[in-house]
């Protein structure tokens, strides 16, 4: 499995961003992204130019849109569906999300726990979904210093509740990138894992398969070994014994720019802490009995001297 840095939530001058498509692509390359999704508010007109510039710069660009509706923002990635954002409302939201997915697009709930109006128009997700199976991913972290912000803390809580209810939803980070922010506060990344070539379809499929983790520049290679078979976080496993093998190190750019430090990890079974362990090296091997419905791992540490969570892995689901 190869892991790639992807930014899933970006804006250009087609909506309220300040960068044109070319500048967005160049700055994404400078930040060592392997891919971005262009998700302007209610328009896709920058996507084609961004894809063309991306080809020249060696950056994969996925077309997308952020439905910026009156009751919340939803990132639709893939560029295949053609839903008129104005038609999305409290009554038909489940059908509209299903429609987008049926066309092959990926559905992500954007910054669900921001306070919304009057701070940021309709940024808070107010929809009551009847069917969370129409949601592929959830911005557990958003924007600056995500693991320290109140909105991301609340978002993580809701996402963890959804996982415990049995929904299978990939954790993602959304920078919601509007301006260059070269010297801005610390931001995170979504890492997406795949076996095949890095291209838009494989990125979307990897997120559908929940092969994601979000982190403050910590590179993680995690596997679960059960009965001699190798699984990844996000996968479905059988009850029984397994071993978690996890390697992690802070990438050099994050070490330099944000002084990120790994201090330990926590393992949760069904949302309850099962094990907390100090970080003692780059690699750990933990035997675990899979006698629960899900297992989650978080890494904690410090960013610019502030203690906080520094990575959240996609859960494993025990379904057999």
């Amino acid at each position, binding site marked *: 499995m190869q892991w790639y840095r992807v930014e899933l939530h970006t804006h*250009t*001058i*087609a*909506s*309220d961003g300040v960068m*044109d498509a070319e500048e967005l692509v160049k700055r994404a390359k400078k930040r060592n992204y392997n891919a971005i999704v262009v998700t*302007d*508010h*209610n*328009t896709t*007109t*920058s996507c084609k130019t961004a894809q063309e510039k991306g080809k020249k710069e060696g950056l994969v660009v996925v077309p997308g849109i952020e439905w*910026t509706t*009156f*009751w919340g923002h939803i990132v639709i990635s893939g560029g295949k569906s053609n839903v*008129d*954002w*104005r038609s999305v409302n409290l009554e038909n939201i489940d059908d509209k999300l299903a429609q987008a997915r049926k066309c092959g697009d990926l559905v992500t709930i954007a910054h669900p*726990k*921001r*306070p*919304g*109006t*009057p*701070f940021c*128009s*309709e940024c*808070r997700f107010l929809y009551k979904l009847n069917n969370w199976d129409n949601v592929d991913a959830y911005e557990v972290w958003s924007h600056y210093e995500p693991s320290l912000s*109140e909105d991301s803390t*609340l978002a993580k809580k809701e996402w963890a509740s959804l996982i415990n209810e049995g929904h299978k939803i990939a954790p993602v980070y959304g920078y919601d990138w509007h301006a260059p922010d070269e010297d801005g506060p610390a931001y995170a990344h979504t890492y997406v894992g795949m076996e095949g070539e890095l291209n838009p379809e494989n990125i979307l499929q990897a997120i559908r398969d929940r092969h994601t983790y979000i982190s403050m520049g910590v590179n993680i290679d995690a596997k679960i070994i059960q009965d001699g078979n190798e699984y990844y976080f996000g996968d479905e496993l059988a009850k029984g014994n397994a071993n978690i093998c996890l390697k992690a190190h802070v990438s050099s750019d994050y070490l330099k720019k944000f002084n990120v430090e790994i201090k330990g990890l926590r393992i949760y079974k069904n949302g309850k802490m099962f094990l907390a362990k100090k970080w003692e090296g780059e690699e750990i091997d933990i035997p675990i009995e899979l006698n629960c419905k899900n297992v989650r791992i978080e890494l904690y540490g410090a960013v610019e001297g502030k203690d906080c969570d520094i990575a959240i892995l996609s859960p494993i689901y025990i379904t057999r």
Partner: protein
Amino acid sequence: MTKIAEFNWNITSADTKKHLTGDFMVDKPFEKLIFECSYTPKYLEDEQKGLQMMREALVKADYSLAKYKDEDLLKHMPLANHVSWSVDSPIELVGTKHMHDPNQVITISNGQSTPGFKHTPIYEGRWSFTASLNAVLTDTLSIHVVVMGENDDAMV
């Protein structure tokens, strides 16, 4: 430049989260359509009302209100109204402009549309313009839109 239509909408805060649509006919050939869109006021100037709105929003969103002192909240002032604009041709949604400037000029043509809008010929037939009321924080809000048609030779 030929004036094709003009829309004036006077609304109240009760209208927030509504779409206001005005139709107009393009009944002769144009190279481009130009929309001059504006709304006023942009900002809620009443500090006390703004503070109250922010506190209520934080409570509704399950935030710890105690963490937010008035001096922190005041940094968000003045709070702003927000209206976004969409244009539909006789065939399709041409685009939406989601920006925060209350004064916008949108151009639509087959080669040089404003970012956010597709390039499209100016088809003859029924077009529409929509003002989407994302946030109306002030008691009242006035929206003014003028639609004009233009041919390139008229600019020479």
